[in-house]
C-alpha cells in the first residue's frame, strides 16, 4: 500500500500544478471583470456607489483569505447552488482578486494626470470618451506590471484551497506525503514547483515594470503609485 517517492509522484504533482494554474487563471479573469466594476464604482461621482465599493474592499482586505474561502465555500452551497469545488474555489478567489485588482487599477487610473482630463474636456470629450481614448490607454500601461505581480500572489494563495478539499498542488502534496511517508522531499518538490511558476511570473512583472519606467518621466510617474501599492500588498 505504501510507496517510495518517485518520478511517478512528481508527475502526479505536476498534474495537480495544472489545476493550480487553472484556478489562478479563473480567479484572474473573474477578478478582472468584477475588479473593473469595483474600480469604476470607486471613481464614480455617486457617493453611495463609492462607499459600497470601498466597504467591500475594506472587508475583503481585512479578513484572512482562508476565512473568506471557508465562507464562500459553505456560503455558495447554503445559498442553494450545487457546484463543483473548482467553481466554489473560483468564486472565493474571484471575490478576493477583485478587491485587490480594483484598488491596483484605481491607482493606475488616478496616476493619469489631471491635465489629461482637463485637456480632454477642452477638446469636448465626454466622460466615457475621455476614459476610453485618453485615460484607460495610459492607465493600462501602468497597470500591467502590478497586475502580473498580483497574479503571482494568486498562484501562491490557491494553495489555501487545499483546505476545502480542492486537489491542487498543495493538497496533492499532502496526499503524496501520506502515501510515501517522506514529507520533506514531497514539500520541497511542491515548493520548487511553485517557485518555478512564480519566479517566472515575478521576472516578467519586473521586466515589464522596468520597460514602463524606461519610457520617459511621464510613464515613470504613472507607474510609481501602483508599483508601491503592489509592493505593499505582496
Amino acid at each position, binding site marked *: *500500500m505504501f*510507496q517510495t517517492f518517485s518520478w511517478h509522484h512528481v508527475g502526479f504533482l505536476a498534474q495537480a500544478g495544472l489545476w493550480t494554474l487553472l484556478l489562478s487563471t479563473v480567479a484572474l479573469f473573474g477578478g478582472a471583470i468584477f475588479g473593473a466594476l469595483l474600480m469604476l464604482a470607486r471613481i464614480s461621482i455617486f457617493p453611495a456607489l463609492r462607499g459600497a465599493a470601498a466597504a467591500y474592499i475594506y472587508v475583503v482586505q481585512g479578513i484572512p483569505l482562508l476565512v473568506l474561502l471557508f465562507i464562500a465555500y459553505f456560503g455558495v452551497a447554503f445559498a442553494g447552488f450545487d457546484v463543483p469545488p473548482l467553481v466554489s474555489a473560483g468564486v472565493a478567489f474571484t471575490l478576493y482578486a477583485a478587491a485587490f485588482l480594483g484598488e491596483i487599477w484605481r491607482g493606475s487610473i488616478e496616476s493619469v494626470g489631471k491635465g489629461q482630463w482637463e485637456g480632454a474636456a477642452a477638446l469636448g470629450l465626454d466622460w466615457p470618451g475621455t476614459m476610453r481614448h485618453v485615460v484607460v490607454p495610459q492607465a493600462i500601461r501602468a497597470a500591467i506590471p502590478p497586475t502580473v505581480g498580483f497574479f503571482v500572489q494568486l498562484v501562491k494563495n490557491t494553495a489555501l484551497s487545499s*483546505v476545502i478539499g480542492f486537489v491542487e498542488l498543495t493538497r496533492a502534496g499532502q496526499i503524496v506525503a501520506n502515501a510515501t511517508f517522506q514529507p520533506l522531499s514531497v514539500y520541497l518538490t511542491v515548493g520548487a514547483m511553485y517557485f518555478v511558476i512564480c519566479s517566472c511570473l515575478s521576472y516578467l512583472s519586473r521586466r515589464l515594470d522596468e520597460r514602463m519606467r524606461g519610457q520617459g518621466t511621464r510613464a515613470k510617474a504613472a507607474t510609481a503609485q501602483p508599483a508601491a501599492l503592489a509592493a505593499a500588498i505582496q
Partner: protein
Amino acid sequence: MRTFLKAAVLGLGLAIVSAGVASAQNLLDDIIKRGVINVGVSLGTPPYGLTNSSMEPDGYDVELAKLIARDLGVKINIVDTVASNRIPNLTSNKLDLVISSFSITPERAKAIAFTNTVYVDQQVLLAPKDNKFASLADLKGKKIGVTRSTTNDIALTKRAVEGTAIQRYDDDASTSQALLAGQVDGIVTSGGLAQVFSQKSPNLETKFPVASAPMGLGIRRGEHDFLHWLNTDIFMLWTTGEIQALQKKWMGAANPELPRF
C-alpha cells in the same frame, strides 16, 4: 474585448443558474436519474481512503463506495473531503454520501443521518516503541495529536487526564505526518490506520484502545428513501460476504458481526 466580456459574464451567469436548478425532490430518484453519485472520502486516511501507486483513489471506503454505486447502477464521483468538512459538505449539498471512516455519534446524528454500521473500529493510541504508554494517565504532559473534530478528537478530549497537550490538525495526513516527524509523542487514531502505520514504520506500535467506534455512512437528514436503500444494500453486501472481503483486504481481519440499529 467588449463582446468577450459580455460573453464571459453571460457564461458565468448561466453556469451558476444551471447548477442551481439541480435541487432534488427525492435524492434516491435524483441520483439514479442523473446517473452519478457524489461520494466524499478523505484520500489522506489509509487504509480507508488513499491514493494508490497508479494515483487512483483506493482503500476500504473507496471500494465500498464503488460497490454501492454498482448496486445503484450509477457512475461514481469520488470527492476528496477532509475530516472536518464531512458534515458541512453534506448539509450544504456538495455530496450525496460520505464514506470516510465516519464514526456514529448521537451529536453528529442531530446534524446528519447515519446508515447501519459498515465497520467497527477501535480507536487506539499509536506511538513510538520507546514511549512507555500503558494508559491515558501516562499521557500527562505529553503531546498527543488528533485530527480536528473527528471522534478521535472527541474521545481523547473527553477522556484525557488534565495536563495532556492535545494538538489538533486539519486532516489525517497532517496528524500522521506530525507523528512521523516526531512533533507529537503519540496520536489517537483508528485501529486500521494504526496497523498500517506500524507495518510501514517498525518503531511505531499500538499502545492501548481508547474507545470503540462503529462507523456508518452519512447522508443528509430527511432522505428516508435513500437511507432505506443504503441500509438494504449494506445488509445485502454483508450477506454476500463482500463487506467481509473488503475488511479482510484492507484491515487484515473482518468484524465477526456488524451491530444494526
